[in-house]
């Protein structure tokens, strides 16, 4: 039985896995202590649960639990990592580098640092969405203090060469931050091998609850940060504020499940994604955005030429998808990520991000393929552009009248 709307927007957020919810519920009932309370069992039990969860998070990425700092989510982690490191090491230099296709949480933080006097380089990715390592090397300067590159892109799912970037940064003594919000449970992460200094995590993209995330802060060599939230000195002074025990427990359980089930799950998801891709490629004039090889199996971002993206999303109401990232979906601007790949506005406008996950079924994928075939056919029937293309007109040669 299909349940509508079919959810294919796992990159925006994921449902809480029922096993995660079950683990959280006791902390929403009789176990309600403040983990900072040292004078009674309510507090001790909460503290023990928080530490167990910290271990689970550390294990998924092969880190030491002492390197994990709880935050309210990846956005806060990104802010803490980037501002915290840039401020702490600003004596060493004021040049920072990122990619134009990063999440807003990174880009907006960079803008803030620019207003404070830092100088930022925003690298263009290659057409396939991946970083151009030569261009990256060329952008490095003696005063470069921080590089921030995401592990997996939220819109097109491409996996950046984090190991290579890490080697380059470490060699030059530059702090390397990675936003891994979209990577956990999708790609193997080994922080013992990767030369990454700071890494942001989110629970709600990996079947955990919203409102909780973490920042990995390397101990060897030790990375220092300026705290962004001050107070009672929680999290070794790096992040003050009462810890939400139930959410932390949920993140721990979500990351435990991710570690144990990632292998099998990715295979299943890849099969579904390939089925979806095959089914949609039958439609004429469709283009996949971003490299298909260096990409998580969960993501498929496709442009359907000669169809207006918003009308398409309205036409396929039975399927919950997005035209870009959730955080920017309130705006009607074409995706800045796709534009950075060199997609013209028209194609960027007609793109849809399908993101597949743990609870997606073959039946749902098949329904989606069929629905898109029907709706795109209908929308193109109404499109004068499509008609011209069918008649063999090269639209690039048409002189449009401007009103």
């Amino acid at each position, binding site marked *: 039985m299909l349940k509508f*709307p079919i959810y294919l*927007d796992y990159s925006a*957020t994921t*449902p*809480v896995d029922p096993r995660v*919810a079950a683990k959280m*519920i006791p902390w*929403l*009932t*009789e*176990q*309600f*202590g*403040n983990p*900072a*309370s*040292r*004078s*009674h*069992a*309510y*507090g001790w*039990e909460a503290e023990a649960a928080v530490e167990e969860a910290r271990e689970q998070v550390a294990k998924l990425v092969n880190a030491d639990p002492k390197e994990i700092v709880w935050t*309210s*989510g990846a*956005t*806060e982690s*990104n*802010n803490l990592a980037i501002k915290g490191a840039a401020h702490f090491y600003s004596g060493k230099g004021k040049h920072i580098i990122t990619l134009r296709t990063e*999440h*807003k*949480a*990174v880009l*907006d*933080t960079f803008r*803030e640092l620019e207003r404070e006097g830092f100088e930022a380089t925003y690298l263009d990715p290659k057409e396939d969405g991946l970083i151009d390592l030569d261009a990256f090397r060329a952008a490095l300067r003696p005063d470069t203090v921080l590089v921030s590159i995401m592990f997996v892109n939220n819109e097109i799912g491409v996996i950046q060469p984090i190991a290579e970037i890490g080697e380059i940064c470490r060699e030059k003594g530059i702090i390397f931050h990675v936003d891994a919000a979209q990577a956990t449970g999708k790609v193997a992460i080994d922080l013992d091998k990767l030369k990454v200094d700071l890494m942001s995590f*989110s629970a*709600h993209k990996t079947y955990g*609850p*919203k*409102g909780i995330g973490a920042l990995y802060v390397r101990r060897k060599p030790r990375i220092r940060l300026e705290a*962004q*939230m*001050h*107070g*009672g000195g929680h999290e070794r002074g790096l992040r*003050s*504020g*009462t810890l*939400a025990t*139930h*959410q932390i427990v949920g993140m721990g359980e979500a990351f435990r499940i991710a570690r144990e089930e990632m292998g099998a799950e990715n295979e299943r998801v890849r099969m579904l994604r390939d089925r979806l891709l095959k089914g949609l490629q039958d439609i004429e004039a469709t283009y996949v955005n971003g490299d298909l090889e260096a990409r998580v199996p969960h993501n498929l971002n496709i442009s359907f030429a000669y169809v207006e993206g918003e009308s398409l*999303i309205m036409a396929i*109401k039975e399927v*919950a998808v*997005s035209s870009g990232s*959730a*955080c*920017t*979906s309130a705006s009607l601007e074409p995706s800045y990520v796709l534009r950075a790949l060199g997609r013209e506005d028209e194609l960027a406008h007609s793109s849809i991000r399908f993101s597949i996950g743990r609870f997606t079924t073959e039946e749902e994928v098949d329904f989606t393929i069929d629905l898109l075939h029907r709706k795109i056919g209908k929308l193109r029937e109404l499109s004068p552009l499509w008609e011209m293309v069918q008649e063999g007109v090269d639209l690039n040669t048409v002189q449009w009248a401007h009103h």
Partner: protein
Amino acid sequence: MFAPVYLDHNASAPLLDAVREAMLPWLGARFGNASSRHEYGRAARRAIDDARAQVAAAVGAHPTEVVFTSGGSEANNLFIKGAAARMKPGLVQVSAIEHPCVREPARQLVRAGWTLAELPTDADGRVQVHALDARTQLVSVMTANNETGVLQDIPAFAAAAKRQGAWLHTDAVQALGKIPLDFRALGVAAMTLSAHKIGGPQGAGALVLDKRVDLEPLIAGGGHERGLRSGTENIAAIVGFGVACKEAVAALGARREAMQAQRALIERCVAEQGGSVFGAGAERLPNTCYFALPGIDGETLVGKLDRAGFAVASGAACSSASPEPSRTLTAMGVAADLARGAIRVSVGASTTMQDVNEFCGALARVADELRGLRAMAAA
């Protein structure tokens, strides 16, 4: 787990049943990202809007004045650092008894060129309005102290702040749900609230903010909460916060009387033991009793009470790992010896008269025992 009687509501209150019920669907089938435009997202957005209205109603504010945060600490940081960042550095004053999440951000401002001065209290823990400097641009005075429960004269501070064009912020985390709160009547520019102190979940709080205040966000990226606080909204916790506010306000009258009666009983028992209640001469929250028994160490007493089945605190939870005497008591001029005896008992919605009677019995027994040990040691 063996369940001790919980008398530490000022640290964190048990989740209300109605709150849990309201939250669970958001950890289940309703899981959308509130920024998504499909039905999953729109349902989440509506839930946040409803919660925003509930929080606003609880403090007489307009829903658009409510900025959701991850909790009280973040809201305090957001206001103090955020407002200061948009002003020319000058004089900032916070009371000497503020929670560290007000005091520490204020101290950070010094590095940006601000001068920080503390507002002292009297012997009962009342922050002195006359200590407000005419040059002060930014002031933060808590509505009710977390340790003593002493209420501050916020309208007087607001009037003074207004006269000199300063922004007044109040941390009302401990006051919400225990006394009536009216954002406009108090006249503050901003007010901090927290869910988990009133039977809501940990992980949600709010800054209620007068829109005339220009604020720089603490967390950038995505532009959530009118650009003042980015990050995917924690819908389950926000929904729980809304319901907790609604419940707290609806039950306030009855609960206040019950809490007052329970506290009176505890304080009679404290008096019988020859103890002194801190801030007793001031107007206080109805639920908080902060006291010391002469010659008895607070940590020891708290430990004994825990083993007897009663969860209480020796000071603020965040600093309860440190052996230093409470800053609040030091500010009130309490001698260090007496201050080291301080323990805080805070009752709440789940506390029964029986809990309190049993606590009083245990306190008398434990105090006798400790006095006996002391006499033996002295002999």
